């Protein structure tokens, strides 16, 4: 009897907490699926009378170019930074030289700085090389400031590969690049998955660099959404639908690849 009471309390608490976490998503969804006619702040919490896509259509019309910017930005920067990180991690774990551990530590510090502290020089630099305002500039910035985290994940992974395997490949005549290509790369697939998911999610969600470094035609979806939300002209229901569109890619990744996401999270929690 006592056990049943405590079990019930347990579930009541768990469900109450779940409701708190789902509340914003509930509002987001019911608002997004209402028709223009039934959207009203006073009935915000009510379910829609049916499934309408008016709000989504309006939001998509406004955000489509930005969703595309975000997609090309995130895909390009993710691939480049994964390749770079895997090479760095390989060298720093299997081709150590004098001072390489210290070098690694020095590089890692780049992960823990608040990006405000490099933002002004960064803007000046991008203006000088002519990439200020452009999407390629933002790609470059994401690749560079991802070096510490991607290097860290790959280095820790490669460090767990037995050195005997590298030596055996070496005796068989493979050089630095051959060992990377035929031994390390195939082994590192799980790390690539973790890094790619982590990088894609954080670059898609990033705001500070994007709002500072891009001009309106290259705005990623986070900046465009913030701008939409700040304008008095766009209705709040369209803003909500826009927020849903912007959240969808990373939400899907979380739902289907959540366990890899969590691993990146543990490694990257301190970044920027």
């Amino acid at each position, binding site marked *: 009897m006592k056990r049943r009471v405590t079990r019930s309390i*347990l*579930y009541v608490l*768990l469900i109450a*907490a*779940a409701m708190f*976490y789902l509340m*914003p998503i509930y509002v987001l969804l019911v608002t997004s699926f209402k028709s223009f006619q039934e959207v009203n*702040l*006073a009935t*915000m*919490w009510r379910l829609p009378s049916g499934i309408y896509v008016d709000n989504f259509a309006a939001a998509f019309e406004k955000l489509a170019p930005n969703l595309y910017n975000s997609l090309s930005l995130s895909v390009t920067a993710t691939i480049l930074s994964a390749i770079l990180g895997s090479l*760095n991690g390989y*060298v*720093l774990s299997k*081709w150590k*030289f004098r001072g390489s*551990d210290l*070098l*690694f*530590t*020095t*590089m890692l*510090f780049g992960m*823990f*700085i*608040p990006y*405000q*502290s*490099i*933002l*002004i*020089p*960064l803007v000046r630099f991008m203006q000088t090389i002519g990439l200020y305002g452009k999407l390629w500039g933002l790609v470059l910035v994401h690749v*560079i400031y991802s*070096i510490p985290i991607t290097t860290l994940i790959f280095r*820790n992974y490669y*460090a767990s590969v037995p050195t005997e395997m590298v030596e055996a490949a*070496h005796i068989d005549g493979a*050089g*630095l690049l051959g060992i990377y290509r035929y031994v390390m790369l195939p082994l590192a697939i799980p790390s690539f998955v973790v890094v790619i998911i982590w990088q894609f999610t954080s670059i898609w*969600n990033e*705001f*500070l660099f994007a709002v*500072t470094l891009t001009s309106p035609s290259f705005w990623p979806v*986070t900046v465009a*959404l*913030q701008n939409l939300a*700040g304008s008095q002209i766009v209705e709040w229901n369209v803003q*909500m639908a*826009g*927020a849903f569109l*912007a*959240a969808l890619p*990373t*939400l899907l*990744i979380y739902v289907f690849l*959540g366990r890899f*996401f969590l691993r990146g*999270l543990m490694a990257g929690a*301190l970044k920027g």
Partner: protein
Amino acid sequence: MSIRKDRLLAIILISPSVLAIAIFVYGFIAWTARAAVSAWEGLLPDYTFVGFSNFATLLRDPRFRIDMRNTAIFTCLFLGACLSIGLILAILLDQRARGEGLFRNIYLFPMAISFIVTGVVWRWLLNPATAVERLSGINLLFHQAGLDFLISKWYTHPKLGIAAIVIPATWQMSGFTMALYLAGVRSIPDELREAARVDGASELQIYRHIVLPMLKAVTLSAVIILGHISLKIFDLVMAITQEGGQGYSADVPALNMWYTTFRALRFARGSAIAIVILLTIAVLTVPYLLYTMRTEVER
């Protein structure tokens, strides 16, 4: 290929990254520090050395004082809320409830979404309008439940506006804290708890004397991670309040830095704020990082 050539190639392979970090992290921090002691206002840089006068001006600036106060309040409340909610949820989930995986995923999913997206939703949930006919969001829920005394001006409250931002921030990060704690709880060997049970300890005593003391390291990492987030929080505040609420009621240093630099074009002052943010975070993280990196590199 000879091994010496390979060693050279290894160094060539990582040198672009090393160079990039040297310039974009260390070089740029030095550049910001230099700008912070300059007279740079407007689009053209002016590196006339003015000593620490920018910092002195900041200390006297009412807005920056509000920012510092807000950061202190925000950090305390945010840490307290995340740690306690995270720990409670982890202990609840540790009771082998049915559907544990589902609950865990629900608590953790806000982490996957951008602060800007959640900011849009929370802006409407925390709608500060208090007139009955204009109520919406959570205020509307309170009104409909007959709890009108709870109706709040949220982030526009002149004294406690910043505390309203703690709600969405906790919503976003407490699940992550739960995951940290749950991993910690699960790493405690079952034998240890079993032995205590055999000795006649109650479940409460087991948590009090065995589980909690073993979670100290987890708590420390959580404090560092959450503190790091709270000292530089920017996106969420901008998404909810645009420019920091009413009379800077929810303003924070990172937001101030951004508007001062890129809207008001006061680059020297913006750099000084950036350096202050960097230093407050360094005080928190550097000792911890030096310690963990030593163990990391030794592995």
